[in-house]
């Protein structure tokens, strides 16, 4: 479903992503875990078409995509952002926030469509008339997920989707993401610094350091504390301080 090869990103002198390769099968959930500055968010942003100036090869759903995307190419992959307070336009009502993607992509964007989108993420249709500041963080993130799904992309990219949320709200959102993935057979790429979240959600976890993938783990590896690369081992140890 996603194929990235010989991928490099340079900002002037800074070699932020150094030659990564990534293949994601349809319906899979791949996690990229790493610390700030490792380049994981950059990979996601280039993948979704937000950033240009990368080198290499990206193909989504069998078709190669370039630096600038057509509407058709954009509709193949959508993104859920980290900050629920920043990813919704403060002056647009929720109904408008959900109708906009459909409208821009030339899809039906009437009240019914919006209500269905809200229902899918467990929110009442009446929320369409509210403004983002009238919703809680968890509710906003649900809207962000609904917004990503409304154009029916086969691929959803998740940039730290629960980092800004409380533990109890995080559980709701992760369950919602799992349910949507099961029902729609979506392909996820999840970026996070939180190893527990990534181990819970993903089938494969790639550990990123200084712009490169240094190790690949399964959730079982993380649970058992098995890793080959020293940085991955260090990350696991630091993430589970109560491990005996």
């Amino acid at each position, binding site marked *: 479903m996603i194929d990235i090869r010989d991928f490099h990103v340079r900002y002037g002198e800074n070699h932020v992503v150094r030659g990564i390769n990534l293949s994601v099968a349809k319906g899979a959930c791949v996690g990229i875990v790493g*610390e*700030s500055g490792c380049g994981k968010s950059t990979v996601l942003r280039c993948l979704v078409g937000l950033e240009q100036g990368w080198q290499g090869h990206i193909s989504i759903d069998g078709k190669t995509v370039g630096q600038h995307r057509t509407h058709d190419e954009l509709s193949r992959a959508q993104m859920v952002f980290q900050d629920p307070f920043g990813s919704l336009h403060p002056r647009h009502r929720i109904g408008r926030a959900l109708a906009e993607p459909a409208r821009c992509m030339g899809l039906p964007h009437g009240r019914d469509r919006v209500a269905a989108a809200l229902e899918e993420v467990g929110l009442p249709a009446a929320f369409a008339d509210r403004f983002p500041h009238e919703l809680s*963080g968890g509710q906003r993130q649900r809207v962000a997920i609904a917004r990503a799904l409304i154009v029916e992309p086969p691929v959803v990219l998740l940039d730290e989707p629960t980092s800004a949320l*409380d*533990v*109890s709200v*995080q*559980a*709701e959102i*992760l*369950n919602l993401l*799992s349910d949507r993935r099961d029902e729609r057979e979506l392909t996820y790429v999840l970026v996070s*610094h*939180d*190893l*527990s*979240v990534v*181990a*819970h*959600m993903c089938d494969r976890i790639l550990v990123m350091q200084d712009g490169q993938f240094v190790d690949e783990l399964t*959730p079982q590896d*993380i*649970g*058992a504390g098995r890793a080959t690369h020293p940085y991955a081992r*260090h*990350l696991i*140890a*630091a*993430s*589970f*301080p*109560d491990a005996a």
Partner: protein
Amino acid sequence: MILDIKNLSVAFGRGALRAVDSVDLQMQGGKIGIVGESGSGKSTLGRAIMRLLPPTARVTADRMAFEGRELLTLPEREMRAMRGNRMALIMQDPRYSLNPVLPIGRQVAETAILHKGLGKAEARDAAAAMLERVRIRDVARVMKAYPHQISGGMGQRVMIAAMLLARPKLVIADEPTSALDVSVRGEVLELLEDLVVADGASLLLISHDIRMVAAFCDRMVIMFKGRVVETLDRLEDAEHPYTRALIAAMPDARHPMHRLRVPDRSTFEEATR
């Protein structure tokens, strides 16, 4: 007793809603963690103890004593003499808690000048010594650098250096590792252990990360909606439905499940009453 708090409540403005509701807390030493989600009142509690809340806050308590001295009635001048000196507050994000327009050396030295009455040159030496104690390698460079020129982890060490220079007896750390990378968190906690506990001082660690607090602190106080819900030493001892729900809701790599157990608010809101 380092800290003796009885029936502390904090309300803001004209609202009846209490950010902190009838909290009792007693500290004899060691490390105590205050755990809660957003809105639990844990940060407000920390700042109430330091009397650092805005004027719109109404703080009431039967007793709020530090080293036997009642804090609520203390005049502001004496309170100021205590802050940074006998009691210190380490905040979450060094990007916002350090002054961006002053070099680091000057900021750390300020504590020495204010609370130890040292002259400028001696204060600078004291600052350099402190930066070494927090295991910063290139002390000379860091002394002259500005906050935006150093990493987050180093910034937090600088904050700790500035706050601990006067060897306070009580250190309140409000989410000291939340803004840092995972691999750096352990180092900061180790530093707090060495500098605070080894010195015989007490640490009040405020955090949303129950696992980290369980592994690091001697005792945990769980807060929900301003009230203390439970006090425990180990996660396994959790009895209150809220604490158990919180632990169950966290993804655990060692016990994977397909769907996480979402806390049902109605059950523990009853139990908290």
